[in-house]
């Protein structure tokens, strides 16, 4: 499903070049539950951005469901982010002025779905993450765990096959973090492909496979920590 071959990513700031990825090979099949670990600066987030089509590789190849991502236009990439991938961020990244309902509705609006369907779908996913009673609250009125659940609901709204989570529990206490991880477990059981970037050994140990990055390269690609 996800197939990266010799992917490199170089950032250029002024005259300074920084090679975040130095030739990554990475595959993920449908329904896999994968964690990506590694020290800061090892390229975890860059890898996730590339998998999620937020960013494009400088060199190498990337096939998503057999289609070459490198050749896609910016509109095609936007549509993939909208329908194929759901993002969950460490800092939640909710729109501060919008209610839970409106936040979850955002990807549905970009998908140009009709109002009645949007409404039904938003309430459905908010119920799925246990927030049926916080539909009209703004982020400031929610706890960290609740905010992250809104973000997960938003990621699920367009029924994507892939969920990408970048340190989803990094800003949460252990109790809330535990809840979030349980939601990911359930989603995986429902058949979603889940890739979590984490520092947390406990989270990594629950996944089917651990990919370890170091200095922009895959150090190990198996169950060993």
């Amino acid at each position, binding site marked *: 499903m996800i197939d990266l071959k010799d992917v490199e990513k170089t950032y250029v700031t002024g005259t300074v070049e920084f090679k975040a990825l130095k030739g990554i090979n990475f595959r993920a099949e449908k329904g896999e539950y994968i964690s990506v670990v590694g020290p800061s600066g090892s390229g975890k987030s860059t890898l996730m951005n590339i998998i999620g089509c937020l960013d494009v590789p400088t060199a190498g190849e990337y096939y998503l469901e057999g289609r070459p991502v490198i050749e896609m236009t*910016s509109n095609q990439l936007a549509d993939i*982010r*909208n329908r194929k991938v759901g993002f969950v961020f460490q800092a939640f*990244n909710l729109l501060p002025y*919008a209610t839970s309902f409106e936040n979850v509705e*955002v*990807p549905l609006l970009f998908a140009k779905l009709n109002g009645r369907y949007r409404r039904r779908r938003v309430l459905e996913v908010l119920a799925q993450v246990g927030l049926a009673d916080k539909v009209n609250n703004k982020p400031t009125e929610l706890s960290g765990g609740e905010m992250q659940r809104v973000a997960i609901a938003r990621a699920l709204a*367009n029924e994507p096959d892939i969920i990408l989570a970048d340190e989803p529990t990094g800003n949460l206490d252990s109790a809330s973090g535990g809840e979030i991880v349980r939601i990911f477990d359930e989603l995986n059981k429902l058949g979603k492909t889940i890739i979590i970037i984490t520092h947390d050994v406990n989270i990594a140990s629950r996944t089917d496979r651990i990919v370890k990055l170091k200095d922009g390269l895959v150090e190990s690609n198996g169950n060993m920590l």
Partner: protein
Amino acid sequence: MKLSIIYNVFVRDFRKQKKRITLTLVALGWGTVSIMLLLGFGEGLHRQLNGQRKGMGENIIVMWGGESSIAYQGMGKGRPIYLQQEDIEYLKRKVPQLKEVGGEFSRWGVRVERDTIVLQEHVIGTTPNYRDMRNYVPQMGGRMINDRDVQLRRRVAFLGWELKERLFGAEDAVGRQVMVNSVPFTVIGVMKEKRVMGNYSGMDRDKLTMPITTFETMFGHRYLNNMVYQVHVPEDAAVLEEKVFEALGAKYKFDPTDDRALMIWDTVATAEAFDNILIGIKMFLGIIGGLTLLIAGVGVANIMYVSIKERTREIGIKMAMGARKSYILVQFLIEALIITFFGGFGGMAISYILTEAFKRVPIESDVMEMMGRPTISLEIGITVVLILGIMGVLSGLFPAMRAASVNPVESLRYE
């Protein structure tokens, strides 16, 4: 994005940058008021001056005899040409395309008396069609001379409104008698007041007008002081002038291309030049107003740049959720248009109130008489709305393009 969210974002931004947005709105309003008032003044001036120009008559050409300057059919140059009363009918017959043809005898310093009032006045004898051609429109209760008056050589007088004041004051003049060179005349009408910008041979308001035939009998003039003819549309004026020269040239034996034989005041050509000057004035005023408005446009662009910088993260989030660039572009464009709309609408409302108030304030002054009062026409409204629209789009477009080109990865990292 739902309109309610755009609205919410707008309200939130407004709260956050209350002062900046308020100042921008004031600038927009100010710019709109300037351009509208300046254009309004131009329009008022145009209407006022046009009204004055038409006071003398519309599409008329005034003509008087000159001197031949080209030898023709055995006659030398320097021969004076005199127009006669019969030429009025002659010209009507020879150039039927003319709308009207008239003529007048004129004499200055004629004694005009009423009771103990003795004046030296300007008297003319003319044809009844001066009523429409030269705007000799009678006030209520009176009339202009007519064909029967001319036919019967009646001793009737039509007074300019100021002459009437001098003879009768506030009293009613119609039906009363005045003595012209000791001959009694009945006043049949008084001219309605009108504004006139140009004139030949004296002011209409001071003239005593009598039938052309009566004048001829009384004073024994043989030659007309001038002839006046009217064309249907301004475009005809040049061609018909040639025909008039041909017709009169054949009668008086002068070369039809001899432009010294007859002197011509073509008010149609004057009107065109005049219109061009006024269009120039209006454009000048419009440009000044437009430049004022432009400053406000810069304000809108500035506020949009600030807003986009503050919302970089929001743009990144939306892109991560699948927003296409075009969506981001449209969102910020709409926001710029909302600001422009509010400022512009406010400015237009203020301008409207100001001009309406101006109309109601009774100021008597020569300047106002000449300048007219600012008038907002539909054209001005449409022009300003178009300018505001274009400005709103432009001032929103460049910031919005910047927003749409934001790199989602970097904007998500942006704090």
